[in-house]
C-alpha cells in the first residue's frame, strides 16, 4: 500500500495518518515508487489554489506550475516576496555532514523527534530529514548566497538542540535569501503563465462541495470586492497563529483566518496548544508596543546567558545603580550552562525560555520591567576579536542597537522569551492532506513535523520540503481520483459561502461601537499569554475559557470600524482577523486544558519532575523539568469544530514509535 487517498476518521474515532508501510528509512522511497501519477498532458487540465506565498506556498506554487498544473496563488501582502518567511534569521538545517562531525539523516531525524519531545509523527519527520539534502542543492542552484569557506565550499554553524553543525546560513538573513530564491522561481512561473498571482488578496473562507475542498472566497484588500475561486484542490500555506498573543515576533498581518475557517468547514485543528516561545527576543518596553523583535538563536553560539546570583544585584541593575560589568564573575549565574552542561547556551528553545522565566520569576531579571536576562558577548569578543564577532552577527547587533538604543559590543544584550512559532496547526496525513479531502496544508500551517517544540533552523527546512518536494509527489494521489474542472464557482456552495462572508462583513461594519480593534486584540493577547503562555494550569485555563466568550461578546457589541467595506480598509482587515483569533483562542485553551502533561512548549505546572521522581534521583533530569505522560498522551489531538461558543470535540491520532524509544528528554 503506497497510501490511502482518503483519511477520514476510522470507526473507532482515531484518525488515519496514511503512513506507508515498510521500514522507516524506506517509507518515502517506497511511497514515491508506488504513488499515483498524472500524465503530463492531463496536468494542465487540473487547477490548484495555493493560499500563501512564503517558503511553503511559494515553493508549492512555483513547483506545481513547473510540473504543468494551472496554479492560482494568493497573498495578503503587496508582493509575494514579503511573506513572513523572509524574517527568519539564523539558518536552515540539512544533514549533509559536510563538517564530518557525525551527522546523518538519522541523526537529524532523531534530534527533531527528541527536540519535539516525542510528540511528532516519525514517518513525516524522517521524510523531512531525507529531503533536507535536496533542499540545500535546490537553493544553491537557484543562487541563494549561503555563507562559504575560503575554499569555496558551503559553511555551517550550530543551532540549539543539536551537537553537530548542520545549519546552512546567509549571515542573519537566511529566511530572506531562501524566500527570494523561491519568489524568483514563482515570478518565473508567473511570467510563463503557469501561475496567476493575486496580491493584496485575503482568503476569508473555504468552500467545500460534496465533502471535498474545491475553492475559496477572497476579499480584494484594495477595493473590498468579494470573489470566489474554484479549483480541483486547495493548498493552505498560511503560516502560524502566533499573533493570537497580540505581541509576537510574527509580522503584523500574520493571522489564523484561513486555518480557522477550514476548521469551521470540517478540517481538524491539531495540537493548537503547542506554541513556541523563543528565548532570545528584545524585551517588551511599553503598552504602545506593536510587536516583538527576535534576536537569532545563532547568537547563542557565542553569547552567554546570565543573571546575577542575588536578587539584590539584579534590583540594582534594574534601577541603574549597577551595570552588567560591575557584577564579578563569581556573582553571575550562567543558568543554562549550570543546568545543561553538555548543551549549555544551546539548550533547546522551550527549555531555555522556561529557564529565563524562572530566573525572572525568582526576582533576578535585569530589564527595567524585571523581565529580561543578559546575553553577553564579552567572552566571545575577547576570544575571537571584535571583527570576527561583527562578521558573524553584525546585522543582528545593529538591529539590536536600533531598537534598544544600547551597543551590544559594549554592554550585554537584554533578552526575554516571546511567542515566535506555532507547532500546532491543521491536521494532515502523510500526504499533507487534511481530513477534508482535497484540502492540503503545508509549512507552519500544519502540525506534523515539530511535535511539541521546534528546533532552530527547522522551520525553513519544513516549509521548503513541503513545497518543493512533498506536495508535488503527494498531490497526484488525490487528483487522480478527481475529474478535472468538475466544480465551478457557479455551484450553489460558492454562492452560499460568499453570502455568509458578505453577511459577516456587514455585521462587523454595523457594530459601530466605540472601542478599537487593537484594544480587543491586546486584551485577548494578554489573557492567553498569561493563562496559555509559558506556563499553564488547570485553573488558569478554565479562567481563560470563561473570559474569552466575554471578550467575544464585547467585541461584537462594541468594536468600531471606520470607513467603508468597499474600500481599502485596514481596520476591517484587522477586525476580521481578530474575530477569528478570539474563536481560535478558545480551541487553543481547550487543547491545553485537555493535555494533562507537560511536553515541549506546553508546560502544565501540575506536571513537572520533583526530587522524589526516579528520573531525578538517577540524575537523568532536574526537578522542575517538563514531565510527559506517554501512557495517556502519546497522541495528536485533533479538534473538530462544533459551532461558535460550543466546546470542540477531540479526536486522537495515536503516535506510534517504531524506530525510536520514548525517553525522558535530557540535555544535561
Amino acid at each position, binding site marked *: 500500500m503506497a497510501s490511502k487517498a482518503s483519511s477520514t476518521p476510522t470507526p473507532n474515532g482515531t484518525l488515519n495518518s496514511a503512513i506507508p508501510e515498510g521500514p522507516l528509512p524506506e517509507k518515502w522511497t517506497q511511497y514515491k515508487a508506488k504513488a499515483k501519477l498524472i500524465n503530463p498532458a492531463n496536468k494542465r487540465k487540473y487547477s490548484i489554489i495555493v493560499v500563501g506565498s512564503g517558503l511553503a506556498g511559494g515553493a508549492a506554487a512555483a513547483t506545481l506550475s513547473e510540473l504543468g498544473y494551472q496554479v492560482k496563488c494568493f497573498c495578503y501582502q503587496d508582493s509575494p*516576496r*514579503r511573506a513572513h518567511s*523572509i524574517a527568519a534569521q539564523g539558518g536552515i538545517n540539512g544533514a549533509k555532514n559536510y563538517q564530518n562531525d557525525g551527522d546523518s539523516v538519522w541523526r537529524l531525524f532523531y534530534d527533531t523527534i527528541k527536540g519535539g519531545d516525542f510528540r511528532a509523527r516519525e514517518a513525516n519527520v524522517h521524510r523531512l530529514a531525507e529531503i533536507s539534502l535536496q533542499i540545500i542543492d535546490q537553493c544553491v542552484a537557484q*543562487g541563494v*548566497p549561503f555563507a562559504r569557506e575560503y575554499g569555496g565550499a558551503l559553511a555551517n554553524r550550530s543551532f540549539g538542540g543539536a551537537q553537530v553543525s548542520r545549519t546552512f546560513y546567509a549571515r542573519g538573513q537566511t529566511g530572506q535569501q531562501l524566500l527570494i530564491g523561491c519568489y524568483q522561481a514563482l515570478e518565473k512561473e508567473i511570467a510563463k503563465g503557469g501561475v496567476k498571482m493575486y496580491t493584496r488578496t485575503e482568503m476569508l473562507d473555504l468552500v467545500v462541495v460534496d465533502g471535498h475542498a474545491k475553492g475559496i472566497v477572497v476579499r480584494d484588500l484594495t477595493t473590498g470586492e468579494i470573489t470566489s475561486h474554484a479549483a480541483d484542490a486547495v493548498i493552505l500555506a498560511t503560516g502560524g497563529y502566533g499573533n493570537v498573543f497580540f505581541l509576537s515576533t510574527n509580522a503584523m498581518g500574520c493571522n489564523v483566518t484561513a486555518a480557522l475557517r477550514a476548521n469551521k468547514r470540517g478540517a481538524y485543528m491539531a495540537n493548537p496548544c503547542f506554541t513556541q516561545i523563543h528565548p532570545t527576543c528584545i524585551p517588551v518596553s511599553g503598552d504602545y508596543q506593536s510587536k516583538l523583535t527576535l534576536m537569532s538563536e545563532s547568537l547563542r553560539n557565542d553569547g552567554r546567558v546570565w543573571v546575577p546570583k542575588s536578587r539584590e544585584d539584579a534590583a540594582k541593575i534594574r534601577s541603574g545603580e549597577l551595570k552588567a560589568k560591575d557584577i564579578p564573575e563569581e556573582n553571575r549565574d550562567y543558568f543554562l550552562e549550570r543546568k545543561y552542561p553538555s548543551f549549555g547556551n544551546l539548550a533547546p528553545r522551550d527549555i531555555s525560555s522556561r529557564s529565563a522565566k524562572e530566573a525572572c520569576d525568582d526576582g533576578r531579571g535585569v530589564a527595567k520591567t524585571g523581565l529580561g536576562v543578559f546575553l553577553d558577548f564579552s567572552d566571545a569578543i575577547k576570544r575571537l576579536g571584535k571583527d570576527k564577532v561583527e562578521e558573524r552577527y553584525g546585522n543582528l547587533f545593529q538591529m539590536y542597537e536600533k531598537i534598544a538604543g544600547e551597543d551590544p559590543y559594549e554592554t550585554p544584550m537584554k533578552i526575554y522569551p516571546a511567542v515566535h512559532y506555532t507547532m500546532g496547526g491543521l491536521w494532515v496525513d502523510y500526504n499533507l492532506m487534511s481530513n477534508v479531502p482535497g484540502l492540503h496544508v503545508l509549512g507552519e500551517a500544519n502540525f506534523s513535523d515539530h511535535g511539541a517544540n521546534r528546533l532552530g533552523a527547522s522551520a525553513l527546512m519544513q516549509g521548503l520540503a513541503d513545497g518543493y518536494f512533498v506536495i508535488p509527489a503527494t498531490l497526484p494521489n488525490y487528483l487522480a481520483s478527481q475529474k478535472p474542472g468538475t466544480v465551478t464557482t457557479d455551484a450553489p456552495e460558492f454562492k452560499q459561502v460568499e453570502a455568509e462572508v458578505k453577511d459577516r462583513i456587514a455585521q462587523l461594519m454595523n457594530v459601530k461601537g466605540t472601542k478599537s480593534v487593537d484594544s480587543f486584540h491586546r486584551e485577548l493577547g494578554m489573557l492567553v499569554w498569561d493563562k496559555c503562555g509559558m506556563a499553564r494550569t488547570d485553573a488558569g485555563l478554565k479562567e481563560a475559557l470563561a473570559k474569552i466568550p466575554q471578550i467575544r461578546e464585547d467585541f461584537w457589541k462594541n468594536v468600531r470600524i471606520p470607513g467603508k467595506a468597499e*474600500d481599502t480598509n485596514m481596520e476591517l482587515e484587522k477586525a476580521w482577523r481578530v474575530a477569528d483569533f478570539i474563536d481560535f483562542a478558545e480551541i487553543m485553551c481547550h487543547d491545553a486544558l485537555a493535555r494533562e502533561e507537560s511536553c515541549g512548549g506546553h508546560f502544565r505546572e501540575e506536571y513537572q519532575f520533583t526530587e522524589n521522581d526516579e528520573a531525578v534521583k538517577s540524575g537523568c533530569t532536574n526537578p522542575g523539568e517538563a514531565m510527559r505522560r506517554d501512557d495517556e498522551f502519546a497522541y495528536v489531538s485533533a479538534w473538530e469544530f462544533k459551532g461558535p461558543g460550543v466546546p470542540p470535540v477531540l479526536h486522537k491520532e495515536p503516535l506510534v514509535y517504531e524506530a525510536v524509544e520514548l525517553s525522558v528528554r535530557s540535555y544535561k
Partner: protein
Amino acid sequence: MNLTLKVWRQSGPNATGRIETYEAKEIPSEASFLEMLDIVNTGIIEDGGDPIHFDHDCREGICGACSLAINGVPHSKESGITTCQVHMRKFRDGETIWIEPFRARAFPVVKDLMVDRSAFDRIIAAGGYIDVRAGSAPEANSILIGKEDADAAFDAATCIGCGACVAACKNASAMLFVGAKAAHLNILPQGHPEKDKRVLAMVRQMDAEGFGNCTNQYECEAVCPKEISADVISKLNRDYAAAIVREAVAE
C-alpha cells in the same frame, strides 16, 4: 513627546491628494515611528475619522513593505534603516514631521501612503531568476564559489524591494534595484548561462514600466536601507553593453 504631523492623504488612486495636519500627543520616545502612527490612528478612529493607511508588515526591517518618505527622505535621513526601524528618540519634542508616500510614476498611490510597487515584481518575472526546476539541482558542494564572489553576490542580494531607491531618485530610476538583482545572479556561476538574457529582459521591462534613466546622482545608494553600493549600477551597465553587442552579433 508632542509632535505635529503633516501627512499626505489620498482616498484612492484617482483621487486628488492633500496634506493634512495631525497632532501626535504624549508619544513615548521608545516607540517606533510606525507605533507613533498607530497611536495617532487610534485617536483618529476614536474621533470617528478614517485612519492613515500605510504599508507595513514585519516591522523589523526585512520585508520591505514600509515605505514612507519622512521629511522628504525615503525611510529616514538616518542611513541603513527602513521606516519601521526609525525610532522616536531620534526626533525632538515639538518637531513638525512631514510624511509622504514613495513617489514615482511607476508607483501609483493606492491609498494615502500606500503605493503599488508591482512593477518590481514584473521586472523580476522578466529575468530576475535562475531557471532551475525543483529536483534538477546538482549536489550543492559540486559548485564551489570563492568567498569573495559569494560575499559580493550576498551584498547585492540583500535588496528588500522597498523602492526607496526609486523614490529618492529625481528621475525615478530603478537602476539600483535592477542592478542589485543582476549583480546577485550574474556574479554567481549558477547565473552565468542566462546572464545576457537576464539583463536585456530586466532592463527592457524596467523601461516599459516607466522608470526614468540613471544620471549618476547616487541618491539611491544614500537611502538604501540595505546600503547596496551603486557599483551594481556600473556592473549592470557593463553587463548590458556586452549583452547588447552579443545580441547584435548573433543577429
